[in-house]
């Protein structure tokens, strides 16, 4: 194919589209718009689902990076001198904030009606400084009863709804409906026993074990553990527009080579499996949508080429090369594909996303949103165009290969 051949092919395609039946062009574009919309919507929805879960995990549970105590050569229980560690981490450009957690284990004991009918529930108890915590973790926004005070007192506790019971689905190990203002006792695994007043209950779904966690103040945790200025883990939130997660992790690891680092994704546990499954489904659905689009284009172009058999025969008779004719059909398919892509994008961005903003679809982790990256959109567009090229070329090849006389006179 030289420049003249391409120009000739483009001329045939242009005239065929311009002088073709407008209703046929509209139908082809409409069907391809639907196909592309389907491709974009399903993949955007499924990626939105995964993205929502991970965002919820970052916002409510783990931030981006978790710094943990030394494991090798000897295992330590705490990160020591956490003030200095947090100060050093906070000085890294792009770090939004870092907070420490104390992790404790224990059994919560609750007597709802003060009648000696105790409910017991083993739980993870985390000691936090809520005034600092809320700068990077927004669990306070998930409060469904009471509050999450910045100055959580030493005798106050905030419970997850799965632990308190009384909210949503009944859990097998909940406290049977603990309410704000009532008291509960914790028997810590180190033998300490303390009594707390419930000041808040928060509700979260799909975020690992957080909804089954109890929060106390960090100073209270230090008293229970008999330690000071240490941490069981440090959560770090970063600005991913400035650096990648891996770059931040490398920097932090460089500062604290003995401490263990984890990405938030390692805490996804079963939700992670769900996300992997959803991402896989998104890929499968995308492939199927591309195949359906390719078949649609193939059928449309084949019917179109069959109806133009005579024209193709005439073109060949007067000396137009077969590959010019084939390329002219590829140009037509690309044209239809591009219009279909534009149609699909317009429906997604001008209709569906605004509607979902006004009337959101509620999901366990929050409202469902369509999530797109420029890379993902580019992949979808390129996939459909490649599908269009192949699906346009094959039928044109089949029809253009026919004997000239048979093409012209049937």
């Amino acid at each position: 194919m030289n420049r003249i051949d391409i120009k000739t092919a483009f001329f045939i395609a242009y005239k065929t589209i311009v002088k073709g039946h407008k209703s046929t062009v509209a139908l082809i574009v409409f069907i391809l718009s639907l196909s592309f919309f389907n491709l974009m919507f399903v993949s955007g929805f499924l990626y939105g689902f995964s993205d929502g879960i991970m965002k919820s995990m970052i916002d409510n549970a783990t931030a981006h990076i978790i710094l943990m105590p030394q494991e090798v050569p000897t295992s330590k229980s705490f990160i020591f001198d956490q003030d200095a560690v947090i100060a050093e981490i906070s000085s890294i450009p792009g770090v939004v904030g870092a907070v420490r957690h104390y992790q404790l284990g224990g059994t919560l004991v609750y007597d709802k009606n003060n009648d000696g009918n105790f409910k017991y529930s083993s739980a993870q108890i985390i000691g936090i400084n809520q005034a600092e915590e809320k700068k990077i973790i927004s669990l306070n926004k998930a409060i469904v009863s009471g509050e999450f005070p910045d100055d959580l007192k030493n005798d106050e506790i905030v419970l997850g709804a799965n632990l308190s019971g009384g909210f949503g689905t009944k859990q097998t190990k909940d406290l049977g409906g603990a309410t704000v203002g009532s008291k509960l006792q914790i028997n810590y695994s180190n033998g300490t026993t303390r009594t707390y007043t419930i000041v808040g209950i928060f509700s979260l779904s799909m975020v690992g074990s957080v909804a089954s966690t109890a929060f106390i103040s960090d100073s209270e945790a230090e008293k229970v553990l008999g330690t000071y200025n240490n941490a069981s883990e440090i959560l770090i939130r970063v600005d991913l527009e400035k650096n990648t997660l891996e770059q931040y992790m490398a920097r932090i690891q460089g500062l604290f080579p003995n401490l263990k680092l984890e990405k938030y994704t390692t805490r996804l546990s079963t939700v992670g499996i769900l996300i992997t499954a959803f991402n896989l489904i998104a890929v499968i659905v995308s492939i199927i949508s591309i195949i359906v689009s390719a078949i649609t284009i193939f059928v449309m172009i084949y019917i179109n080429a069959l109806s133009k058999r005579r024209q193709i025969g005439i073109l060949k008779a007067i000396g137009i090369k077969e590959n010019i004719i084939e390329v002219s059909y590829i140009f037509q398919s690309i044209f239809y594909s591009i219009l279909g892509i534009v149609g699909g994008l317009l429906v997604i961005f001008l209709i569906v996303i605004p509607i979902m903003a006004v009337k959101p679809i509620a999901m366990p982790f929050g409202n469902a949103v369509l999530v797109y990256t420029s890379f993902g959109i580019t992949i979808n567009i390129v996939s459909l165009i490649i599908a269009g090229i192949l699906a346009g070329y094959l039928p044109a090849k089949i029809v253009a290969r026919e004997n000239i006389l048979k093409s012209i006179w049937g």
Partner: protein
Amino acid sequence: MIKVKNLVKTYSGEIPTLALKDITLHIKEGEFVALMGRSGSGKSTLLHQLGLLDTPTSGSVAINNIDVLSLSDPERTKFRLQYLGYVFQEYALIAEFTALENVYFPAMAFGDNIAIERATELLTLVGLGDRMNHYPSEMSGGEQQRVAIARSLINNPKVLFADEATANLDTVSSEVIYKLFQKLNKELKQTILMVTHEPEDRKYVDRVIFLKDGVIEEEKK
């Protein structure tokens, strides 16, 4: 110009049909020749073999001293574009192209930079200077056929093949077309090989080749 030797064409099928039987003929440059015969005599089949629209079963065909049957498919396509012109019974214009586009398109495909100017000249030559921007559907049969003739001439073909070019036209339009062929032949020395079944058309041509059952029955000046 055209040398045909022992040309045979057999259509395969349950019962093979021998359409052309050992045809040998010679057409000189600048000659206007009519192929005549009854329906089914093989005249269109012969035209299609010589015009490289079909491939004979055996024999040889040389056009402009080139053994055209030895050419590959792409070479034959290029040869048709460069050296041959066609006028079909049913005009065979591209419905999506205007008269001007139909005419200059083969030259455009050939890379001719002055295709539009030459197409304009040819359409004026065939009397359609004022109909250049009309689509085939907006033209009469006679006008369409004149567009087809203009198109066939755009690349200055060595041979012009016309297959029952006036079969769908009324007497007046047919007369116009034949006069045009005569003009092209006399003034431009255009070699023309024309298929017709009308005996009175012989008055326009230099030579008539009569076919009967796939063989040349007689040739008359």
